[in-house]
């Protein structure tokens, strides 16, 4: 809380304290540029992390729904194998429920292709079993092996299963995006520490004189902290604005467009990048403060 108040009073400013440190031209510009670049990248990492989270979610929902098991067996074994399949399914973890489709339902399914008059009973049409999954679904390979042994005519038709690695990829990508965000934050802290250290080293004489006339460390540190916090905030604001504009102007396609065009914010999500500016200010505040207080320890 006191730190926050410090940050606030810092930004309100004390122009006389500011002048005490001579202009740090080049390092100041570097700080603005670094903050802008990092904020720009940060907005993209943020968008990526949101997009991949959405994608994993959407695909995950589709997958969670259902899969089908087809049983093609000679008429006399058909009922027995169907019973076996249902029994096995009832014992399989990840299966919420399962049921054999009735003839009427199967006919309805096939009607679009063969018309309503199809004599399902007399045709060698496989019996379909609908499986409703729960949680992360069942172990398809394990189920296949069990079915092979007890119901050789059963085939697991995991038509949505191909998405599973994609979901994993989306989740991985999400993790990657969050990792990138973390790295961006750390890099920004490191770059600002470097820039501040350079400025501090160049102003050793100033710090010495100030100490000799009775300045406390925090007073001297503040002059540097304020400067770098303002520069970093300014840079971050520029970088964020550019990145948001860039994303807003990206061509949109509907859901079918998929991942590439999905790299955007939605609704209140557009406010999220605004957090990058105070975050950059906070990082600069801490990095410079830390560097300044450490540099001051060397000065009597």
């Amino acid at each position, binding site marked *: 809380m006191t730190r926050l108040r410090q940050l606030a009073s810092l930004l309100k400013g004390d122009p*006389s*304290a500011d*002048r*005490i440190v*001579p*202009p740090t031209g080049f390092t100041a510009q570097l700080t603005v540029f670094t903050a802008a670049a990092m904020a720009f990248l940060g907005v993209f990492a943020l968008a990526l992390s949101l997009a991949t989270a959405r994608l994993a979610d959407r695909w995950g929902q589709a997958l969670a729904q259902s899969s089908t098991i087809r049983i093609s067996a000679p008429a006399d074994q058909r009922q027995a194998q169907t019973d076996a399949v249902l029994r096995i399914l009832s014992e399989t973890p990840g299966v919420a429920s399962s049921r054999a489709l009735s003839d009427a339902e199967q006919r309805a399914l096939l009607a679009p292709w063969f018309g309503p008059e199809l004599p399902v009973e007399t045709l060698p049409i496989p019996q379909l079993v609908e499986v409703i999954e729960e949680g992360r679904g069942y172990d398809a390979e394990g189920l296949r092996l069990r079915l092979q042994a007890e119901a050789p005519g059963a085939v697991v038709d995991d038509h949505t299963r191909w998405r599973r690695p994609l979901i994993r990829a989306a989740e991985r990508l999400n993790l990657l995006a969050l990792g990138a965000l973390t790295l961006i934050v750390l890099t920004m802290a490191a770059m600002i520490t470097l820039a501040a250290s350079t400025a501090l080293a160049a102003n050793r*004489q*100033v710090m*010495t*004189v*100030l*100490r*000799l*006339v*009775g*300045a*406390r*460390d925090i*007073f001297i540190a503040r002059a540097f902290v304020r400067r770098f916090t303002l520069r970093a905030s300014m840079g971050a604001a520029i970088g964020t604005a550019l990145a948001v504009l860039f994303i807003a102007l990206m061509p949109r396609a509907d859901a079918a467009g998929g991942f590439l065009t999905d790299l955007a914010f939605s609704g209140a999500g557009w406010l999220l990048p605004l957090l990058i500016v105070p975050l950059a200010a906070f990082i600069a505040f801490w990095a410079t403060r830390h560097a300044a207080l450490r540099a*001051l320890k060397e000065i*009597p």
Partner: protein
Amino acid sequence: MPWGVTSMAQSEGSPVIELSQVSYGYDGRALLNDLSLTLSPGSFHFLTGPSGAGKTTLLKLCYLELAPTQGRVTAFGKPADQLGRDGIAQVRRRVGVVHQDCGFLDHLPLIENLTLPLAASGQDTAEFAEDLRALLAWVGLEQRATALPPELSGGERQRAALARALILSPDVILADEPTGNVDWEMSLRLLSLLVELNKMGKAVLIATHDLNLIRQAKSQVAARVLRLRGGQLDVAGADL
């Protein structure tokens, strides 16, 4: 023999700065050896000695820029090694120092250099405008207030350094060659300022080679003259 110099009749109250059996050397070379010095309110000291004897070093020990390798420095009743960095800053606000190299910030005009102690201690510069004008007039720098330090002559810088040392109305004034670069008339003017402040009870210590200045001062105040030689302090003889 080592000389523990203590102020005598003029001392009023407890010492402001006290060095007791202090030794110091740069890079392990002994420079000051087991010397003691007490600055009491109202005391007036001159510090002489050959160039390189360690006068500036001794002053640095007094305003806590250096810590002794042996012995103890006490400032306003507190051991210096227990003050911490903020405590040292507090002490320095009560000690006006004229540095031999002046110690200005070259990017700030003179006037802002003079108010640096005010800014550093968080005081409102405006409140001191009157004092500042008077000080500037006394050291003859009213016309140079907006000049940058590198644009000033050596003497002007020294006068400005004295003005800055006095701005916070310190209890102790430590001046390192404050008249090294100014003419005799200005030297007397600066000296009379210091004498005036001394009469108000401030402890004054001036490091100088200027024997004429010392003689002049002795006619105005009960000044003690300390000579630093071979790492030791003694009281100078009657020849001064």
